[in-house]
């Protein structure tokens, strides 16, 4: 379809909507934003007549590549270290995708703009595409990769593992609470516009470097739909800015959405890219370098900052703070260390770091070895069963961390941990902003203004609480992370599949009692708690080289 005919066609389909007079559409999802003064902004023009054949062609290319990968024995070249992390990533990502589809009616109901409704409806079906194409990729991995365990329990494991809730925010955050906070600010303005760059562009590049060219094939195809979604979000933002009363809410939501996306996505994708790769060329970009390019320059400086001229208050301080956490405070390294510490309750295998990795990390993040080197050496030393417990139960100078009540990533930058009694419970937060999110933003009143539509943080927010006081073997059994011989664990702290004696079984982890840091915190007296918090914040948590 030519550009001229596309314009005509798009103009024609604007005739489809009308102002109802007998009844108005049901109002299912509330928002505190107002759009009654908003000028209508058009998103990118999209007509279904051209959309379906275009997407079908994109699909054909994806499925052609899949056939090619199988015929070309791609799995003889993929790095197991990389593929194992895909068990976590591909368990998470189809849910945010389908949640984005489900979020579209929330935006449609909130924003009175039929042209935009059309764009949002097309986005809905895009997201169904993304979710199912990603599930299919995972299915292919399960069928052709050497170790299918973990892929085979994927959606169950996502729903019960100790990393699942971290990822699930990047999905549940799209579909609940204030319709605009969820479906526009969190989903489109921040998650899609900023963080799909690292998810769908930076990470696939790393996959290719690890012998996997199917992830780039699928995710670049997905990413090519995102520009339309970004345009939808931008149109809603401009409409929201037309009303002064929305600015306070926009400022609140941008702070929440930016910070939560940083906490969650940088934790996960940073770990996959830095600790899932075997490509240790010194001139390949680190995650921090990718972040600087894709998030700081492309999103923050090129997209977000220009919006200041429309009166949008940009969270400059939080952007700088996120960078500070990634570059100066080792956020990604500490998250990777946490995931590896908890390997028995994961559903993938985590390869230890080698001398070549150490060199690469040291060159990219000077000082890395002094802080993390000895711990990874201990991890390698303790990787096989028989003479030792899992590393989390051995004394290697590493204290299992408190979870952040809000973002559910642990409070790994220990000096920044905030502790507060909220709703009758002692809670820990990784940062001031996460504390603010729970105590101030997700409340029915904000800065003296009623916000009756704002969502709530719900659920059993600390995973460890669920299994407090239980034996590790019973926990792994309950989670279902046991292989088909009924005793060997799905997770392993190494990649050695060649010798059964190197594989941990339920018997090897039995006798270790799991403790919830939050339950313990709430059981302490005031004095004990104060001392504990001071110790937590002051402890370096660095494994001594003598261990």
């Amino acid at each position, binding site marked *: 379809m030519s550009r001229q005919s596309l314009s005509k*066609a798009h103009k*024609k389909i604007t*005739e*489809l*909507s*009308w102002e*109802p007079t*007998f*009844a*108005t*559409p*049901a109002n299912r999802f509330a928002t505190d934003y107002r759009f009654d003064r908003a000028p209508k902004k058009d998103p990118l023009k999209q*007509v*279904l007549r051209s959309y*379906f054949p275009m997407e*079908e062609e994109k699909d054909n290319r994806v499925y052609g590549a899949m056939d090619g990968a199988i015929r070309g024995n791609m799995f003889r070249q*993929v*790095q197991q270290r990389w593929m194992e992390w895909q068990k976590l990533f591909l368990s998470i990502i189809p849910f945010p995708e389908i949640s984005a589809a*489900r*979020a*579209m*009616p929330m935006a449609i109901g909130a924003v009175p703009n039929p042209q935009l409704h059309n764009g949002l*409806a097309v986005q809905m079906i895009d997201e169904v*595409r993304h979710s*199912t*194409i990603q599930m*299919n990729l995972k*299915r292919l991995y*399960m069928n052709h*990769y050497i170790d*299918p*365990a973990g892929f*085979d329990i*994927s*959606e*169950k494991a996502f729903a019960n593992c100790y990393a*699942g*809730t971290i990822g*699930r*925010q990047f999905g*549940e955050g799209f579909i609940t609470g204030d319709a605009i906070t969820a479906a526009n600010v969190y989903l489109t303005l921040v998650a899609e516009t900023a963080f799909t760059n690292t998810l769908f562009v930076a990470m696939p590049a790393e996959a290719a470097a690890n012998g996997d060219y199917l992830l780039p094939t699928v995710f670049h195809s997905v990413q090519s739909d995102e520009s339309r979604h970004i345009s939808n979000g931008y149109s809603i933002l401009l409409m929201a800015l037309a009303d002064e009363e929305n600015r306070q809410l926009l400022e609140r939501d941008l702070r929440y959405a930016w910070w939560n996306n940083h906490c969650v996505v940088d934790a996960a994708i940073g770990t996959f890219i830095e600790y899932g790769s*075997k490509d240790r060329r010194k001139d*390949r970009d680190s995650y921090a370098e990718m972040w600087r390019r894709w998030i700081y320059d492309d999103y923050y400086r090129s997209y977000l900052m220009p919006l200041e001229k429309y009166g949008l208050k940009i969270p400059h301080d939080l952007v700088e703070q996120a960078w500070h956490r990634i570059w100066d405070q080792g956020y990604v390294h500490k998250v990777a260390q946490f995931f590896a510490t908890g390997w028995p309750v994961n559903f993938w295998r985590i390869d230890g770091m080698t001398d070549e990795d150490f060199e690469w990390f040291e060159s990219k993040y000077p000082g890395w070895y002094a802080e993390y080197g000895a711990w990874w050496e201990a991890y390698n030393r303790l990787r096989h069963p028989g003479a030792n417990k899992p590393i989390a139960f051995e004394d290697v100078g590493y204290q299992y961390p408190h979870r952040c009540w809000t973002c*559910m990533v642990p409070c790994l930058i220990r000096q920044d941990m905030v502790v507060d009694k909220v709703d009758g419970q002692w809670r820990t937060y990784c940062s001031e902003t996460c504390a603010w999110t729970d105590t101030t933003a997700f409340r*029915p009143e904000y800065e003296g203004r009623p916000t*009756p*539509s704002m*969502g*709530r*943080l719900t*659920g*059993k927010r600390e*995973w460890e609480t669920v299994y407090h006081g239980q034996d590790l073997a019973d926990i792994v059994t309950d989670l279902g992370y046991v*292989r*088909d011989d009924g*005793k*060997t664990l799905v997770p392993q702290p190494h990649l050695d*599949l*060649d010798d*059964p004696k190197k594989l941990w079984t339920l018997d090897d982890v039995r006798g270790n009692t799991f403790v919830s840091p939050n339950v313990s915190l709430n059981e302490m007296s005031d004095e004990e708690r104060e001392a504990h918090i001071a110790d937590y914040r002051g402890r370096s948590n660095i494994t001594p080289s003598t261990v």
Partner: protein
Amino acid sequence: MTTQADKPVKEQRSFPKPQFTDAEAGALVFPSSGSRAFNYYKPQKMRATMYEDVTFDVQPDPERHLLQGWIYGFADGDGGYPHDWTELRSGDWHRFRDPNEEWEQTIYRNNANVVRQIQQNLSNARKAEAYQQWTPTWTRFVERNVGAWMHAEQGLGMHVFVTIQRSAPTNMINNALAVNGTHKLRFAQDLALYNLDIEEQLPSFDGSAHIAAWQSDPVWQGVRETVERLTAIQDWAEATFAANLVFEPLVGELFRSHLVMQIAARNGDFTTPAVIGAGDGDYDRDLRWTRALFDLVFKDEEHGGANRAIAACWLDQWVPLSLDAARRLQPLWSQADEKVLRFEDGLDRAKDRFVRLMDGLGLGSSAEGMNQ
């Protein structure tokens, strides 16, 4: 002048080195090395379908594997997909499977085929100058009435199906609703762009007449009212039931199948049936999944009786409204020059179909007497 010595030394390109890892299936035998099926759900048949594999459990459920429950809630504390967003109850909503097995590939293949087929027909019509052969009466019929129908499809697509695909308790149901909504929106656009195509070819064709017909022609106000009332339903299952099992057979098929498809050819029009027929094809698919869903809830061991009683109340509300809309369309049957069918015959066929549909779902007694 550039000399050999001036040429810059070519930098060594940096690229990842391929490594043979032998990480393909079957390279080693160890526990679970042959576990190559998603084992967290029970397929409907012995072997899981592609559709089930890529759809099932992607939307988690605290009643299945969701250990920590929903971690975000609405202001009232509800999170995720509350079961009380419909009055119906099910022993297990997850038993529903879409008989169309819709997932990414089927959605795009099916809809791309439909738009290609329509465009090919319209291209042939342009070459044959087919619209120029239409009588003025038929031209008015198409510009006003075939045109008016686009709004019904758009309203149902955007404000019923796209909207409620946020609301059902399982991914299988919500995806079916999303695909249903997509059909409606595509068909609405098919009709709008068909209207544009004729407008560009036939100077006497008024491309905006459909707007006035939909907004104010008394013939269309019953349909518009019913569509608007359907968009106002809060309960996702009621909206699906009323739209796909009441409005569609009594009004949608009456207009599309029992009027336009029957009289267009007699009036020298071979393109309109091709376009309208695509909508009927969509409805065949949409009806298939809708019947499967309601068959499940009406036969539910524990809740089936209560669900049928609720549906009977829905019939009380939606059948009279839809029949009224259908009857107000009656003047259309005498507008064309060539009339091959009486309105009452068409309505009888639509009602017969509706009663058979309700019989099949165990609601025959509730439907009887309503369609008078």
